[in-house]
């Protein structure tokens, strides 16, 4: 990892904590009301920090490259999912503690009889509850991704708007004009990030369209979607990164999906994505016709050897369509004349499911690359590796001690977790293990 990325990584965490607790300043700075029971003040303080954390969710999901660079997009989304539960807990704790402080007065939560400031507060908590509940259920019940995604943004904006209005109307700690102005700006910045993501970025994408050049079937129910820029120079990306792709519709409709680049980063005028038929959208890729417009928002992700240029060797572990970003890395290495030794451990069901198998064989001859197919269902007489990528298998192929290398893993979650655990047990430092998860959204 670049030293600048490491420094940024620490800086963002410190800033995150500071911004999370920043709304508490409204309770301490400037003109302050008389103190009340500790329990009521705790309720208010938890509410303020809940608002701080909520505002930060808009930052986490605004696709700001500099924020994601030190950690990788998948981990930022993972963090967003986990800290959402704590945010919800704070939003629930605030009213429930007040109910307790007022002698278990559940009437405080009655949206029909409460004052407007209460109505806004209750509405905000309900919106956040629905938001988090829908997200949890979507994963469990595999609910429609696009509908969820649109409502996720709408509910988040409504929850934020409602909670800001609630605190403003309560007014106890936001009573002076200066504090009111700060409060309005605070809310506008958070909501502005929604506009940035849902309006500004799509408009940028409209200004730089692409058209389908080719849809090429590959092994393993995968298609290579080849696109060319229309009226611009294309996109500079690092091999291994990904982008959000919109096809069949305008980018303003929020029907976009993340896919890894599979082409060489040295050819920005002809960009390829490797897309496996896994769901509603991916199964429509093959229907795209040459000339149809597509829109790309990217690049994103930190899964790239360009961030680990001091490596003497590279180790790739791919499972299924997880070969896609690694294909981009290998093709880029070929275009750059990068002859560093590399090994690819490629897990597939069988050889007919090994996407890009033939081109990988050609790259093996061109690069200093050793390809090891690990087949779940090997044919009779197969003398290569069989089963899964295990610790024992890794030991056989990892470079010898003293070599400076990183391991790039991309594939299904169970494989990622198993390989990560095995590498940890083998003493490979986490900073040298890079992973790309598919289930980031």
């Amino acid at each position, binding site marked *: 990892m670049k030293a600048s990325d490491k420094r940024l990584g620490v800086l963002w*965490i410190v800033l*995150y*904590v500071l911004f*999370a*607790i920043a709304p*508490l300043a409204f*309770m*301490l700075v400037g003109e*302050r*009301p*008389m*103190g*009340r*029971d*500790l329990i*009521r*003040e*705790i309720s*208010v*303080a*938890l509410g*303020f*920090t809940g608002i*701080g*954390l909520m505002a930060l969710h808009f930052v986490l999901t605004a696709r700001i490259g500099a924020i994601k660079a030190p*950690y*990788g997009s998948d*981990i930022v989304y*993972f*963090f967003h999912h*986990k*800290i959402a539960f*704590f945010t919800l807990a*704070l939003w629930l704790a605030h009213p429930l503690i007040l109910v307790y402080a007022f002698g278990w007065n559940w009437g405080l939560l009655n949206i029909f009889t409460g004052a407007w400031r209460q109505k806004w507060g209750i509405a905000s908590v309900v919106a956040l509850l629905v938001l988090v509940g829908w997200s949890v259920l979507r994963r469990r019940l595999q609910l429609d991704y696009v509908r969820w995604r649109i409502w996720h943004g709408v509910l988040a904006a409504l929850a934020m708007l409602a909670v800001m209005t609630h605190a403003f109307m309560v007014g106890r700690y936001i009573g002076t004009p200066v504090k009111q102005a700060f409060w309005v700006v605070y809310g506008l910045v958070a909501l502005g990030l929604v506009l940035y993501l849902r309006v500004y970025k799509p408009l940028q994408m409209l200004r730089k369209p692409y058209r389908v050049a080719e849809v090429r079937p590959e092994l393993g129910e995968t298609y290579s979607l080849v696109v060319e820029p229309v009226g611009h120079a294309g996109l500079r990306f690092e091999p291994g990164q990904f982008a959000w792709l919109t096809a069949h519709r305008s980018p303003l409709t929020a029907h976009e999906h993340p896919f890894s680049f599979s082409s060489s980063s040295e050819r920005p005028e002809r960009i390829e994505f490797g897309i496996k038929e896994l769901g509603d959208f991916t199964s429509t890729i093959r229907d795209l016709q040459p000339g149809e417009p597509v829109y790309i928002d990217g690049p994103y992700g930190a899964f790239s050897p360009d961030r680990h240029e001091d490596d003497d060797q590279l180790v790739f572990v791919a499972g299924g369509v997880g070969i896609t970003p690694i294909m981009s890395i290998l093709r880029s290495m070929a275009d750059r004349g990068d002859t560093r030794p590399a090994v690819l451990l490629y897990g597939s069901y069988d050889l007919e499911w090994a996407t890009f198998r033939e081109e990988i064989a050609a790259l093996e001859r061109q690069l200093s690359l050793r390809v090891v197919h690990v087949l779940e269902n090997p044919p009779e007489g197969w003398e290569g590796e069989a089963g899964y990528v295990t610790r024992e298998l890794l030991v056989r192929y990892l470079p010898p001690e003293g070599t400076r290398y990183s391991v790039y893993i991309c594939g299904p979650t169970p494989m990622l977790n198993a390989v*990560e*655990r095995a590498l*940890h047990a083998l003493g490979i430092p*986490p900073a040298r*293990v890079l*992973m790309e998860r598919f289930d980031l959204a």
Partner: protein
Amino acid sequence: MRQRLANWLVVLISVIVLLSAVVVAYLQSTAG
């Protein structure tokens, strides 16, 4: 491993946020 680190970060930040809220609440409750 990275997810485990992220989980620990969530716990750490949660604790810092909770402690900060309690301290500020205490300071405010004693404001005269």
